[in-house]
Structures are given as C-alpha cells and as structure tokens.
C-alpha cells in the first residue's frame, strides 16, 4: 500500500516539476509569472488525466488501481445504504444457505473417515429372499463359512450394536454399546488412550468377558479413574473386566457408542439368529468390485448348502462410507441443488437491483466517459463495486451459515444425520463461501456493468433528469431476469409442495392404535439381566410393575410389549402352521411381539375374534398366540383361525406349539411408509421371556406428566432397573416421520426464501418500469384514461411476467422433480394438484407484486407527471 502511495506521490511530483520547469523557462523568456503559469498549464493539459493515462502503464493488474476502485466502490455503496443493505442481505441469504449446506455435505459425505485406510474397509451384509433387505445381517454360521472361503480380505470381523446397563456402585446407566470381534480395533486402526484393546483370540467361547470403554464414559461414570484398567464392573448383570479406554475421537459403529465388549463366539447350532454385521479390510490390489463378486460366489455356496434357509442369497459388500452415509446422500445432494437455486435467484435479484441503480447512475457514467475513462475502466469499476457487495455478502452468509449449522446440529431429529460431529465451519467452508461470493458477484455485476458502460454518453448527458430517460432494452433485461427468478422459484416450490403432499399422506396412515396417542405414555424398562435369568422372577418383576402402575391415580390402563408402533420391533421371525406346507417364500419373516397382558387393552387395538392374552397364559400352561388381521386373512382366507396350531421359525427347528386364541387389528411396526404387510403375531412374555419391555400407560390426563411417578414406582420395586426412552405415542408417531419432515422443512424453507426473493424481484421490475413511465401515465390520464386502465396496464405487466415465469418453471419442474421420486410417498412427481397450486401461488404473487407499484402509478397527478422531466 505504501509503495503505491509513494509511486502516486512521485508521479505527482514529477508532473509538478514539469510544470514549474516550463513556467521558469517562460519567465526566463520574458513572460509575466501569471501569463507563464497560465500558458504552461494550457500547454500541459489536464493534469488528472495525464496521471490517469500514465498510471495505466503501471500494469493492468495493478493493486493500486484495485485499492482505488475499492475505496471508490465503498464510498458509492455507503452513499446508498438502502441498496447496499438490500443487496448484501439478499446475497448473504443465498450464500449462507449454500455455505451451511456445503458444510453439511462436506462433513457428512466428503470428509475422510477417521479410520486408518478407511477407503478400503467394507461392511458386509446378507440379502436373501423373502426378507429382501439389502442391509440384512449375517448369522454366525454364515460368518464362519465366509471366513473359511474368503480370498479378498486380509481381515474379517463382526460387530453388532446394542445397549448395556452399567450397575454397581454409581447410579445405573444405560449406554450405547457394541459387541465386536477381537480384531475390530486393529482393523480400524483405533489406538487406545490408556490400556489396550482386544488381542487376537479374545473372541473365543472360552475368552474372558472384557470391555473397552470410551473416554466420555470413563470420565462421566468412573470419574476418570486412572486405575480403571483391570477393574470389574457389572454390565447388564455380568461381571466384565475393563482393559482399555478409547479416545473421545474414536466413534464406531455409531457416533454415540462408548462401550465395546468382546464376542465370545461358540460354534453355532443353527443358521440364525441374524444379528451380525460383517466388517473387512481389502487385501492390497483388490477392488471392491472383485471383492463383491468373490463374496457373492461364497454366498452361492452357502445357499446351495442351505437350500431351505436361503433363496437368491447375496452378500452386499459396501464401502464403509457408503454404508454409513449412503442413505442420506441423495437427500443432501438434493438440498445442495435446492440452495444453488436460491443463490441463483438471489443473484438475479441483486443483478436487477444493480441494473436499476446503474440506470440512475447513467449521468455519472457519462461524465466519467467524457473525462476519458475507457469502457474497460468503467466495467472494472462497476465490477469492483459488485465484488465488494459480494464480499460483504460472504460475511453475512458465513454468519448466517454459522447460525444455521448450529441449529441443524441441535435439531438433528432422532439422529437422522450420520457424522453430525464432523460438520464444522472450517477453512474449507470459508474458502467455498468466498469463492461462491466472488463468482456470484462477478456474474451479477457483469450484466449491469456491460449495459451501463455501453450507453451513449452524449445521450445520457443531453437527457438530464434523474431517471436518465426511458430505456426499453434495460426493461427487457429486467423482465428477463424476473421471469427467470419466477421460473426458478416455481421449481423449488413444486419440489417442496410434493414433499409436503407426501408428508400429509404419510401422516394420514393409520398406525392401528385405537387409543389417543397423546394419552399413552411409553417407556423402556430393562430388567438387569442376571437377577431375572430365572424367567419366573422376570415375569413377576413385570407383573409387579404393572400392578403398582395401575394403582397410580389417573392411570386408566397399563400393559407391556417389546414392540412399539409405528416403527419399532425387536424381533422378526418366520413361522409355520400345522397343516400348511412350509416354504421360506410363503412364510416371510414377520414381527413377533412378546407381550404382557394389558398391552392391547391399553393401546386399544381391537379384538376381532377370540380373546386377548390373560394372566392365565403361563409358562407351564398351554402355548398360545395372537395373530394380526392381515396374517389371519392371508393364511386363513376361508377358515376360522382360532384353534389352529402355529410354531415360530421354520418347521425343522421344532419350536413349541402355540394355539391361535385370538385375532387383533393390524398395527404398523415397520414404519408408516413401509410397503410390507402389517402382519404380526404375539406371544405371552410368560411363554417366551424377553429381558426388556416397553411399559405402556394410558391415562386420563396428559400422559407425559405421569413419568416421574411411574419411574419412582419402578425403582421402588428394583433400584437397579433401567428406565429410559420415555415418550408418548404421539411423539413416537411424530418421530417416525422425522426424516421426511426434516427434508420437507429444509426444502420448504428454501422454497419460501426463493418465493420471497422472486416476489421482491418482480416488485422491483414493475416499480422500476412505473417510475420510468410516470410521464406516459400522465399523458394517458390527461387524454382520458381511467385509473382502472392504468392499473390494468401495470398489473397486466406483472401478470405477464408471472405467466412467462410459470410456464418456463412448470416445464423445468416436470424435468427436475423426477429426482424427488425416491422421497415421495403415494404422490407422483407430476402430481397435478401440487403443480397447479404452486403455479397459482406464483401467479398470485406476481400480480400482487405488480399491484403495489400500480397503485402508485394511478395516484399520479397528470399535470405533475407531464412536468416531470
């Protein structure tokens, strides 16, 4: 900066020296000082201009010029604060939305995973008919087969997510845990903070029960005890020795996992249960494709060896990143596309503002041209002003993104976004933001700059007046930009409209629960294992809870089950019915409920035939089962199902017989949007014990307020019982739609922002044209035009812009909403209702945006308007 100042000062001094030398010469030749000075100046010419053209020689990219332009630009912007604030806020909104979504996209989809050689780690699943789940789990037998035949991976392991209760000295706590094979940590390159991880061979049936804990758990539950290693704690009732602490930066398989327990794998007796996810590291030089085809070959071998269990078996090999974030990838890219649209609209708006302003500045431009500024110089000046706006917009955008990302992380409903901790506003986001800002501002600045500098200075100077005269081609550019804005926002609105429609459809789906969801409270009660391994004690524990909860004031009914509508079931299994030929395809895996008496009554699930379960259905008694309506319809179409005998799993496992004693209404357990049939069957807990149950309480008052009393009642029975996930069914149902709601809210807010910007854009164009045509309106009215004629003229202009934008937008929507197909539930991408509504809304907005300036036009006093120039 100093260098440039000095250079400028020296140029000045050089020219002044020239002048004084010339004056001295003239005086020496006998001229008077006054005459000499005047003549020297005349001969020298315009000092400012000589400086200007000399500076040109200092190089095109001279930083000095840039600083000069910057200073001037800042002055010009400060002189019209309304324009500056409007432009900066508009751009800030567009840029900020992009920066926020970029940081999410980068953090979730692009940031490298924090595992060693993460790009060559795969998760391995099993997919077979009739489950047809591409992310299905393996059984232990499959794992051993796979491991024995593997050629493509140099390490193979297993894991499964779970929860464990830590009991003992401190307050009982439930933590997210994972069971893992001994090689999991070395496979991921996870190094403990203190102690060790599991070593080779510590996952055998004979191994000791060991645990590695996370740093947060270590500090929270164990007070950061430095002597933790070797200590034995009670995990879900089993004594377990802690061998290591992982640093807080290690997250696997879930973000919140903080307890890892070694598997103690014994050779399996049967194929199932399907609890395990495979994890493996590719051998050097092997690609995912090769690994996939080799693993599928192994899958075919497994299928041939077990034809009764599997049909069309494949073992999908997914790169770790795809497995972790694959399900949110399409939604995130869609959001990125949507915010790009918002930015484009914001940019068009600012271009329009700049264009309108540059028309007002035509005289200024003309004067500068008259003084010798070149066209390049003017374009550069105007572009500098735009870039200044862009940079301010980037700062505003970063602030906006900072708020938005914070809100998003806090909101992140039901942990929808994976890797949310990896979302940060780091230098990449800052670079992205400024790059977008500068690119955008150069683009929106270029159109007005070229237009302004192309105008004929003579004309501008002669015309005089503030507005600088009427320019049809200027108005054409304005209109084109506004039409484009409307079209873009229509596309966004159409997308948002489709998502809203499908959300409404989703919420119309009946969960099958008759009770008012607001009045039903559910909580997850875990009987800490060891104490209740004796099933009779476990059932008595549940029964005691039910008895004391039913005695609480305000409680109408209470029951228990291990499934929760609309999207939670713990177990699904095939089944077989005596007298009906079995095959895997005919008896698909179906949710199995293990319920305590009172569940159906509490949720008011209707009894269609037979009876509900009662306290009389005991372990030593006769096996019973309830089936859902659709299961009854499918297997007993012309028959009374009551009295038929059913078994869990496939026939060769010879599970105990269960008599069908009742048929109940269908309930959704696999999600409201599930395409699966809502089949389910229910067995009494007394006959098939499970170690955790949802307690359901229906009350006459707001159910949520009952929670503390109920918890006290449970802890009075067993102080080690872990109670969590308290929520009303209303919340469960609402949470089950949180993913589509999340998408819809985001896209909807982008679309609203777009609509607002487009409305401002149309308003701006009409207001501008009204200002330009004030005189014309005056003449029309003086010649007898009625205010309504002028009103129609102006509003018609807005409507015409709207119509053009709507038509273009509709065509674009039909092309683009196709990408939304996967997000839609029972709504077509070409849903006419949505498209018509959206088109009507935009048309209305365009008319309204024209109406406001039109009213001003009508109030024009003809005599004043005619004197206007």
């Amino acid at each position, binding site marked *: 900066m100093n260098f440039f100042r000095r250079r400028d000062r*020296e*140029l000045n*001094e*050089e*020219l002044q*020296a*020239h002048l*004084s*030398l*010339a004056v*001295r*010469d003239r005086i020496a030749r006998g001229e008077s000082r006054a005459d000499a000075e005047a003549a020297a100046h005349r001969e*020298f*010419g*315009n000092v400012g*201009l*000589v400086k200007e*053209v*000399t500076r*040109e*020689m*200092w*190089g095109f990219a001279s930083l000095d010029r840039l600083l000069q332009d910057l200073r001037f630009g800042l002055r010009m912007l400060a002189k019209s604060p309304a324009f500056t604030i409007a432009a900066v806020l508009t751009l800030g909104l567009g840029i900020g939305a992009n920066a926020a979504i970029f940081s999410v996209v980068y953090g979730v989809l692009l940031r490298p995973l924090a595992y060693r050689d993460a790009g060559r780690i795969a998760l391995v699943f099993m997919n077979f008919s009739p489950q047809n789940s591409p992310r299905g789990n393996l059984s232990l037998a499959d794992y051993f087969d796979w491991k024995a035949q593997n050629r493509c991976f140099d390490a193979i392991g297993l894991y499964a997510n779970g929860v464990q209760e830590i009991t003992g000295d401190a307050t009982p706590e439930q933590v997210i845990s994972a069971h893992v094979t001994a090689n999991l940590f070395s496979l991921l390159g996870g190094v403990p903070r203190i102690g060790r991880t599991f070593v080779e061979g510590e996952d055998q049936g004979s191994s000791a029960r060991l645990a590695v804990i996370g740093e947060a758990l270590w500090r929270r539950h164990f007070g950061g005890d430095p002597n933790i290693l070797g200590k034995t704690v009670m995990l879900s009732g089993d004594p377990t020795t802690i061998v290591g602490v992982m640093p807080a930066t290690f997250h696997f398989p879930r973000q919140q996992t903080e307890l890892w327990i070694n598997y103690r794998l014994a050779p399996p007796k049967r194929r199932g249960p399907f609890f395990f996810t495979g994890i493996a590291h590719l051998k050097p030089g092997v690609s995912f494709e090769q690994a996939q085809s080799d693993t599928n070959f192994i899958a075919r071998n497994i299928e041939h060896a077990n034809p009764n269990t599997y049909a069309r078996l494949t073992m999908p090999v997914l790169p770790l990143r795809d497995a972790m974030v694959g399900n949110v990838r399409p939604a995130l890219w869609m959001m990125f596309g949507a915010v790009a649209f918002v930015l484009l609209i914001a940019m068009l708006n600012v271009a329009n503002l700049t264009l309108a302003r540059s028309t007002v500045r035509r005289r200024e431009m003309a004067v500068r*041209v008259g003084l*010798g500024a*070149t*066209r390049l110089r003017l374009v550069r000046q105007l572009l500098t002003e735009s870039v200044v706006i862009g940079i301010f917009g980037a700062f505003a955008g970063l602030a906006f993104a900072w708020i938005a990302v914070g809100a998003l992380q806090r909101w992140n409903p039901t942990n929808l976004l994976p890797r949310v901790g990896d979302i940060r506003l780091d230098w990449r986001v800052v670079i992205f933001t400024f790059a977008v800002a500068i690119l955008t501002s150069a683009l929106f600045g270029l159109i007005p700059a070229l237009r302004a500098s192309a105008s004929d200075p003579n004309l501008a100077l002669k015309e005089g007046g503030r507005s600088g005269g009427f320019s049809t081609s200027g108005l054409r550019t304005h209109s084109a930009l506004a039409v484009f804005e409307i079209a873009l926002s229509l596309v966004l609105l159409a997308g948002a409209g489709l998502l809203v429609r499908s959300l409404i459809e989703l919420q119309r789906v009946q969960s099958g629960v008759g009770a008012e969801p607001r009045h039903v409270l559910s909580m997850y009660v875990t009987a800490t294992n060891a104490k209740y391994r004796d099933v009779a004690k476990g059932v008595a524990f549940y029964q005691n809870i039910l008895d004391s909860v039913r005695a609480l004031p305000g409680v109408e009914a209470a029951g228990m089950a291990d499934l929760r509508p609309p999207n939670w079931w713990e177990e699904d299994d095939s089944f077989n019915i005596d007298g009906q030929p079995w095959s895997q395809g005919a008896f698909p895996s179906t949710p199995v409920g293990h319920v305590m008496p009172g569940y159906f009554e509490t949720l008011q699930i209707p009894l269609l035939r037979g009876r509900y379960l009662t306290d009389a259905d005991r372990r030593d008694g006769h096996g019973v089962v309830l089936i859902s309506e659709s299961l009854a319809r499918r297997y007993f179409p012309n028959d009374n199902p009551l009295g038929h005998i059913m078994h869990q799993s496939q026939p060769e496992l010879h599970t105990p017989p269960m008599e069908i004693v009742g048929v109940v209404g269908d309930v959704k357990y696999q999600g409201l949007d599930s395409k699966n049939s809502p089949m389910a069957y229910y067995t009494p807990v007394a006959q098939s014990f499970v170690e955790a149950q949802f307690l359901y309480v229906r009350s006459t008052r707001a159910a949520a307020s009952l929670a503390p009393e109920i918890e006290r009642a449970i802890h009075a029975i067993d102080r080690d019982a872990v109670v969590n996930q308290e929520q009303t069914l209303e919340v469960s149902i609402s949470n089950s739609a949180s993913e589509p709601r999340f998408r819809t809210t985001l896209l909807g807010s982008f679309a609203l922002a777009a609509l607002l910007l487009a409305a401002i854009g149309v308003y701006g164009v009409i207001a501008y044209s009204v200002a330009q045509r004030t005189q014309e309106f005056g003449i029309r009215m003086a010649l007898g035009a009625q205010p309504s004629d002028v009103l129609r003229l102006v509003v018609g202009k807005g409507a015409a812009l709207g119509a053009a934008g709507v038509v273009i937008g509709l065509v674009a929507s039909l092309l683009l909403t196709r990408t939304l197909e996967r997000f839609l539930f029972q709504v077509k991408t070409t849903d006419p209702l949505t498209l018509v509504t959206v088109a009507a809304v935009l048309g209305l907005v365009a008319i309204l945006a024209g109406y406001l300036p039109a009213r001003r036009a009508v109030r024009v006093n003809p005599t004043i308007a005619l004197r206007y120039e």
Partner: protein
Amino acid sequence: MGNRYQNRIELLQGTLDLLILQTLQWGPQHGYGISQAIRLGSGEVLQVETGSLYPALHRLEREGWIRSEWKLSDNNQRVKEYRLTAAGKKQLLDERTRWEQLSDAIAGILASPRRSEP
C-alpha cells in the same frame, strides 16, 4: 470514448519511443527536458503532449530500456531524470534500423514514377 491523448499515442506509437531513446542517448534528462529537446530538435515541428510523453516514459521504464532517479536540478528543484540502460541502447539500435527501413521503403514508394493514365 473520444480520448484525444490515446489517439496521439497511437499516431506516434513506436516513433515517440524512438525519439525518447534517441534523446536520452546524449545523457540523462527529465521529462520536461525531453519534450523540449524533441521540440527544438525537430525545429518546433514535433510537439510532444504530456499525455503521451509520461505514459511512454513509464512504459519504457517498465520494459527496462530506461531507468529513473531523483536528482536536484541546477536551481534546486527535485526532478526525476531518466537514463538509457544497456537494453535501451540495444533497443534504440533496433528501432533506428527499423525506422530507416520503413522510411526508405516509404521514400521509395513516394519517389517511384507515377503510372501513366490509360
């Protein structure tokens, strides 16, 4: 975009450079001195506009053909003097050769006998 200075520069493009370099061959000189030298040397025919002179000086300096330094003139006025560099001397030779070729060529055309009317 009527910029009369720019038009002059175009008119004298190359020629002005040659004149400046030639003037500086006799020793260091400031801008005013160069313009006076050209005016007097041409018998008052060539009047160099400041709007052409100073851009040309700054351009030649950027090309490395001349170098500038601040000096005190005989009446204690701080002036910026330009002097030829080695590269400038070579450039002067080149431009002189080119100019002579050009003026010979033009002279040749002007001196050739008129074609007779058919």
